[in-house]
């Protein structure tokens, strides 16, 4: 199974930090291999080239590996380790917030996203909790970091209103399921509640809507598979998020 899903590596200056981030990310993605590489061999603070190389090798999957890091020098160590691999092009070192990025990447990998999609999910986790304040109408214009498309052509779109019937609303688990359900769909998907909206691929962004039982949220999607995206989310809500 793990061979089909992108693997993740968490590089940190601290062993405990790497372990903790890997633990939190793995919880969202039971089938994804998440390997921590933190600290020096003697337990001190720093990044250990050998440990990073070992972690990348252990996380290696047919689908590739995405590496997240904490501080700049961890990036340099990670890049060196990747360059020393026989097939460096199968690994992406991504500049993303470590905790949110790791969780977004894990969810995307669990959903079958390829390494480009997993890396993009991690990058897009930056500043997601602030997205809720945007004044822009949902679905209009480019969304920062959500995808490389710059829509010159009007793209196909789809929309649905969903009233949440499940007990916890869009709390952590339903939000993760929702994000995961559209991980491999080619569409920019937004969920809005009142004036605030969220990137449907970002678990944090979804949770920050604080949509509760009984609230009606609007799903808007643009992109070639917009209809599919909306259909998947509607089906998930109809199943009460498998609660």
């Amino acid at each position: 199974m793990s061979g089909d899903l992108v693997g993740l590596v968490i590089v940190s200056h601290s062993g405990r930090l790497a372990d903790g981030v890997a633990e939190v990310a793995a919880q969202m993605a039971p089938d994804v291999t998440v390997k921590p590489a933190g600290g020096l061999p003697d337990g001190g603070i720093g990044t250990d080239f050998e440990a990073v190389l070992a972690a990348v090798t252990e996380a290696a999957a047919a689908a590739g590996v995405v590496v997240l890091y904490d501080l700049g020098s961890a990036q340099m160590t990670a890049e060196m380790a990747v360059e020393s691999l026989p097939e460096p092009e199968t690994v992406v070192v991504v500049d993303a917030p470590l905790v949110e990025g790791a969780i977004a990447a894990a969810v995307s990998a669990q959903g079958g996203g390829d390494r480009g999609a997993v890396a993009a999910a991690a990058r897009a986790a930056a500043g997601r909790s602030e997205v809720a304040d945007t004044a822009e109408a949902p679905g209009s214009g480019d969304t920062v970091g959500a995808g490389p498309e710059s829509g010159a052509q009007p793209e196909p779109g789809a929309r649905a209103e969903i009233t949440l019937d499940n007990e916890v609303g869009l709390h952590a688990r339903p939000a993760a399921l929702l994000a995961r359900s559209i991980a491999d769909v080619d569409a920019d998907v937004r969920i809005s509640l009142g004036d605030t909206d969220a990137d449907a691929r970002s678990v944090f962004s979804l949770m920050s809507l604080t949509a509760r039982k009984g609230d009606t949220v609007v799903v808007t999607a643009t992109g070639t598979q917009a209809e599919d995206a909306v259909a998947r989310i509607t089906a998930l809500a109809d199943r009460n998020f498998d609660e």
Partner: protein
Amino acid sequence: MGCNAERVAGVLRAGAETVAEHKAELIDLDRAIGDADHGENLDRGFAAVLAALDAGVPETPGAVLKVAATTLISKVGGAAGPLYGTAFLRAATKLGDVSELDGAAVAAGLRAALDGVVARGKAEVGDATMVDALEPAVEAAERTHSDGGDVAAVLSAAADAAKEGADSTVPLTARKGRASYLGERSVGHADPGATSTALLLRSFAEAAR
């Protein structure tokens, strides 16, 4: 006088000695604007380089530098590891399998080292990093070589320029690495990596005389 593999190993041993001698000073510099580990990191790395050379000196100058590179990459554990590691690795690649270095080879190796550090860390002169020492050092080395300088002269000119470059980081605001988190508060301190670059080049120059 030719500079063969044995000679290059001697130059690196001198570098290791200098790092050990200046360990506390480098730690103090890094305490002011970083995490107080630069001296520790480099000393750990160069002690391992010494051990590797004691186990056996390879045949060519390039191969000796490559041993230093791979050892530093796996032992240093801080930003200096990938940076110095890349520097030595690029220099080693540039030298290929020539058996003796002349002034031209040393200047070319230093240029390759600088290119490696810049590729790895994306810093420019003025960012208050080791690049502020290494770039002027490379330029001085190239000038001295084209004026006909030998290995010792080229390294000596590089060391002088590196020292000046390291001193020039004092009034600068750090824009790369840990020190960049301090912003304006990094002003008034010499950059540890620039300082270690100058110290290393000085020791290389003296050992090559």
